[in-house]
């Protein structure tokens, strides 16, 4: 039937819908990549957008060819199909072009990947905290006045992570029980926390303020609520003030306070 070719429209609308979603996404903060605040995040977003352009062009190209084919070569009275088994030249062309694009894409990623994850590119700074995931909270262990971890004056916070703006920041990531993943969407950082391993992770922030820490690896019934607060301080002094306050809170002796209130 002649009207059968109208099916082309369904496939065309599907392709337009898909393309339209990404075009609209650019204009709506809820749809696009959550705003980025880290220097590595900028590189990752750049790579994301390059892949989006390449795949977008390939997608639109193949869908146009598909729809053109369906519309033009739909069955009609008197139509005869071509008798072709293939064409070597075309096969070579459509092997070599995608192959080169894919190799380019893979090589183009390597620099950023090695800068973020290779141990050799880890900033040579004291880790700001040791981060331990456990069902279903994040423990942050900061060094006290002696600048060393695992000593008596360590400060431990729960679901409350602080660091300083524009400083390369290193954490040591651990897990106490099951797999968790340390995911900072606004920083484009994700790393699984693996029982038995200590994994150094680094990142930075060009913006001070409040952000969110997500557990991104299934860790049990409370996985969905394993959320942490992230505070990026404007200056080191501001961070030190917070740390001092945290220490006071940690050392507050409830019994002594009660005794004092009762007139001791």
């Amino acid at each position, binding site marked *: 039937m002649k009207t059968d070719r109208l099916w082309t429209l369904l496939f065309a609308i599907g392709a337009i819908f898909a393309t339209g979603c990404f075009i609209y996404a650019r204009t709506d903060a809820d749809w696009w990549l*959550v705003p980025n605040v880290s220097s590595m995040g900028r590189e990752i977003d750049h790579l994301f957008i390059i892949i989006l352009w390449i795949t977008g062009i390939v*997608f639109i190209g193949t869908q146009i060819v598909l729809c053109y084919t369906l519309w033009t070569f739909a069955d009609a009275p008197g139509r005869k199909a071509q008798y072709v088994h*293939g064409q070597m030249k075309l096969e070579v062309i459509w092997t070599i072009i995608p192959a080169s694009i894919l190799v380019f894409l*893979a090589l183009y990623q390597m620099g950023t990947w090695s800068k973020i994850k290779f141990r050799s590119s880890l900033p040579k700074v004291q880790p700001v905290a040791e981060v331990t995931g456990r069902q279903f909270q994040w423990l942050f262990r900061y060094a006290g006045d002696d600048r060393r971890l695992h000593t008596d004056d360590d400060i431990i916070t729960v679901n409350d992570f602080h660091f300083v703006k524009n400083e390369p920041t290193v954490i040591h990531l651990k897990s106490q029980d099951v797999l968790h993943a340390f995911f900072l969407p606004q920083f484009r950082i994700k790393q699984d926390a693996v029982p*038995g391993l200590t994994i150094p992770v680094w990142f930075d922030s060009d913006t001070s303020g409040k952000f969110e820490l997500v557990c991104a690896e299934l860790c049990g019934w409370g996985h969905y609520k394993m959320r942490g607060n992230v505070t990026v301080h404007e200056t080191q002094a501001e961070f030190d003030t917070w740390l001092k306050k945290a220490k006071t809170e940690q050392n507050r002796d409830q019994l002594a306070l009660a005794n004092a209130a009762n007139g001791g």
Partner: protein
Amino acid sequence: MSDHALSAGHGHDDHIHPEPTSFLSKYVFSLDHKIIGIQFLFSGIIMFWIGGLLALAVRWQLAWPWKPIPILSELWADYGYRLPPEYYNKLFTMHATVMIFFVIIPLLTGAFGNFLIPLMIGARDMAFPKLNMYSYWAMWPAIILMTYSFFTPGGAAEAGWTSYPTLSTFSWSTPGSLDGQTLWLMSLLFAGISSLMGSINYITTIIMLRAPGMKMFRLPMTVWAMFITALLQAFALPVLTSALIMQLLDRTIGTNFFAPANWMVANSGNVVGGGQILLFQHLFWFYSHPAVYIMILPGMGMVSDILSTFSRKPLFGYKPMVFSISAIAGLGFIVWGHHMFQSGMNPALGATFMLSTMMIALPSAIKTFNWLGTMWGGRIQFTSPMLNAIGFVAMFVIGGLSGIFMAATPVDMHIHDTYFIVGHIHYVLFGGSTFAIFAGVYYWFPKMFGRMMNERLGKIHFFLSFTFFNGTFFLMHIIGMHGHPRRIADPSVYEFLRGSGVVGMNQFMTINAMLLGLAQLVIVYNFFYSLFFGPKAPANPWHANTLEWCCPSPPPYYNFLKIPTVYRMAYEYSSEGSEPLDYWPQDQPEKSDVVEAHVETH
């Protein structure tokens, strides 16, 4: 009759086994590959509904967190009709497990593989009919154990279909890690045994029982795809089996393959360890990445044949197609690490896996271009199998391209374990595999049951499925790139997911998912109505060339009264001098015979 068999030198015997007479041996414990294929088809359809309903409950919770789910919420009257969060984890764990191990793999390899391989290569049955029967009946302990696990204390498994230790290995880590997880492991062991028996049978049958003249490079693409898939299964499954057994031992007799030293969970005492968690991930993905190809290659083969038939045109680039599925299978064994980029695996290894993963996109691209080449210049007939096959091509392009984002290790840092990957896998497994299954059902139903399905209902079903499928899954890419993690019961815990845009998209997707589910009633009605009341099907309703169409619909117990001789490839459509008919079946030496056969069967 016998000189063909002798000259071919294959293992044919020309005597015909007597047909079983009792109901039990004919329809239940059948040795007939066609009946076994249909058994796999029916159990697959039942499991498809279970898996689909589990998914709808997942979607409900994401759109309207903690609002009572219609009907299901009665189960949780004690909890104020709210879905308990561990149940959410069970829902998605079991949805994936059921869909992967009990629907897509058994439907593609079990149903279509069994039914089609002997018919398409011109054999009377599989090489090992008994093994074939066992492979089906090994599925039932798997199904029963998996279903039973919902009713054990603690309920069904809830460690995700990936079942990563230590959440899965220690019974006190989460409620579903009690007996539910043990049953899950045992069930998958049975499903694995079923697949393994099937794949050995397919490999042997395709190598040994091809009809005279059926050279390897005359096999239809469907059979090539089944052959490569069977090889993948045979080589990858032992690794999954070992991983499952190691986890089972960790859980039951106290070995420590996966738990590290000085480790504890939920305030238990320290566990004596010495194992490695990443070991399980490596073993698991060494099977489960090839499994992704096990779930798509047969669909690619079937779609290739269907596209050629309804374009009335030879398949474009047959050999490149064969080489590209072989390349997918080969590369499929060296890309498993791309599931583990953020797992703590050495990042240098991640860089190598990125390169191999990018390369595996190449054969998929080649196949897509060849499908477009097949349709180009054809005489495209928009039948319901063809529409679903075109849907496969259109949607597989999206699934393939979105994979490139995850293959890029730095980009994967952001989108790993978000809804972006959920969108990607559903474009491959629903947009790809499931549309291929629909296409296969519409295409081979006349051969299976001797009756035609209703074309109008078939088209309505495709229109609704295609529309609501895109409505359900496309926006997952968008919320995924926004950062929406997968496997969380309540997105509103996170501030960046509370925007009206994200909430709106989640609700839009859920409504589409429900409509997508409802649309499947159309194919179920069409299937069962046509089974009893559809018009009688001729032997070759689509005027196709492959061998299954030269025996009656449905084929008799012995398939072929006379083992056919194969003269050419299956794709001689619209060749010179073919008027008024535009096809030339593989078993017809002369074109004039086609005309006769055509007259006979109509």
